[in-house]
């Protein structure tokens, strides 16, 4: 199935290679931006697709501290602490409602594998994916995103893309 390279004049293979290189050079100089192999970041930024796994956003109101995400994480990089709060009953003599409230919800992005298991198993629509990727830090401590920072990422969560028919 493999065909041997065609017998041609000695030097034709090298000449063809030279042609490809000079053709690429002329195309790149005179038709800029058309077929560059690289993107001139940060002057030009590519927008990632909506489903790209960039960062995880948290909706604190929806979280019930069920700990499923922390348990299912392969790296155990989610740190959750919560406490039970009692709310006054609606009517006098009614049941006291007990609500789990978050004290601490940290995701350590230095450990996170971006696998998405936490988003997938959350039964209360509290975790979402966002394609933001520019959050690098110069020290490792900054890679631990706390509750409020995760809440802020919620603003960058895109609409779900339309599906193929």
């Amino acid at each position, binding site marked *: 199935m493999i065909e041997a390279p065609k017998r041609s004049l000695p030097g034709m293979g090298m000449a063809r*290679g*030279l042609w490809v*290189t*000079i053709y690429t*050079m002329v*195309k790149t100089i005179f038709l800029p931006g058309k*077929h*560059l*192999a690289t993107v001139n970041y940060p002057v030009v930024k590519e927008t990632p697709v909506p489903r790209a796994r960039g960062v995880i956003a948290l909706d604190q109101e929806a979280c019930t501290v069920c700990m499923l995400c922390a348990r299912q994480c392969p790296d155990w990089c989610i740190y959750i602490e919560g406490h039970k709060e009692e709310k006054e009953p609606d009517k006098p003599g009614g049941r006291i409602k007990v609500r789990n409230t978050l004290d601490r919800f940290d995701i350590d992005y230095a450990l996170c594998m971006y696998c998405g298991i936490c988003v997938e198993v959350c039964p209360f629509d509290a975790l979402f994916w966002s394609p933001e990727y520019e959050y690098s830090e110069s020290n490792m401590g900054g890679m631990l995103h706390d509750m409020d920072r995760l809440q802020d990422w919620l603003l960058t969560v895109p609409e779900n893309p339309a599906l193929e028919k």
Partner: protein
Amino acid sequence: MTSFLTDLFSNFWVSLAGKLLIVALMIPLVGMVIGFAEMKLSAKMQARVGPYFAGGRWGWAQLIADGVKFFQKEDLIPAEADRPVFKLAPVLVLVSTVALLVVIPFGPDLIFRDLSVGVFFALAISSLSTIGILMAGWSSANKYSLMGGLRAAGQLIAYELPLVLAVVGAVILAETMSMAGIVEAQVSAGYPFVIFQFVGFAVFMIAALAELTRIPFDMPIAESELVMGYLTEYSGFRFLFFFLAEFANMFTLSAIAVTLFLGGWWLPGIPDDVLAYAGPLILVAKTFLLVFIMIWFRWTFPRFREDQLQSLAWKVLVPLALANIAITAVFKVVLG
């Protein structure tokens, strides 16, 4: 004003100082310009942008920034290296490049020193760099550098022969060994020697690529095998010397090729008084054309293995060059 300058420069010491200054400045300048050209051209050949941020949108200050960066690096010498040899090697390589500039005719009367054996001097001096490379490879106390240095020694010595023999054809046609005399011979003959010496020109260019250890002949450096060959242990301004020397050597060897084969500072149809000013520009333009071809070859081809390299030199290039000499000599005797 002009008479003051003419009187000033007719003083031997002033003109000597001026010439030294020009030669000393030319090498870094030429090195940086060609280095920048290589970065940008290689980027365009690979569908990239190239240097962009240093110096506006064009990145022309990239090599200046690199030069400053290299200068302020720590001077690392391996503990077991042979210190005097290690320090002397880059100097030797750079000196051989600088000395080549002396015999290149930039215009009808613009040559630093018109030696009557200019060609001989040029070829002899350019082979000094071989010793420098071998010194670098040996003194680095590193097996990879040693292998690179030994490969370099073999390759550079092997390619000296085609380099020298290819030139003999042009010397026969010009009947003189002085570089300015060869250009004058092409001017009076009315055609550049490459028309009859195309074999010699091709052999010279291939041998020049091998002398510069550029791809496709860069076994001594062989970045993907020997990490940098004989240059592995060099960092900081010593590496800068090697780096600049390579680019400046591209310029000087191409300038020699232009002088010997392509007519030097002469273009047919331009009157003599314009040539006095336009001569250097024409020479530089032709040299940059050859430098562009060298860059083009570097970014297209892979590298030869050293036994293929050696067989190319001894079995192909040397017989071709010898045949070229024989045929040229016969034609010269028969046709006068």
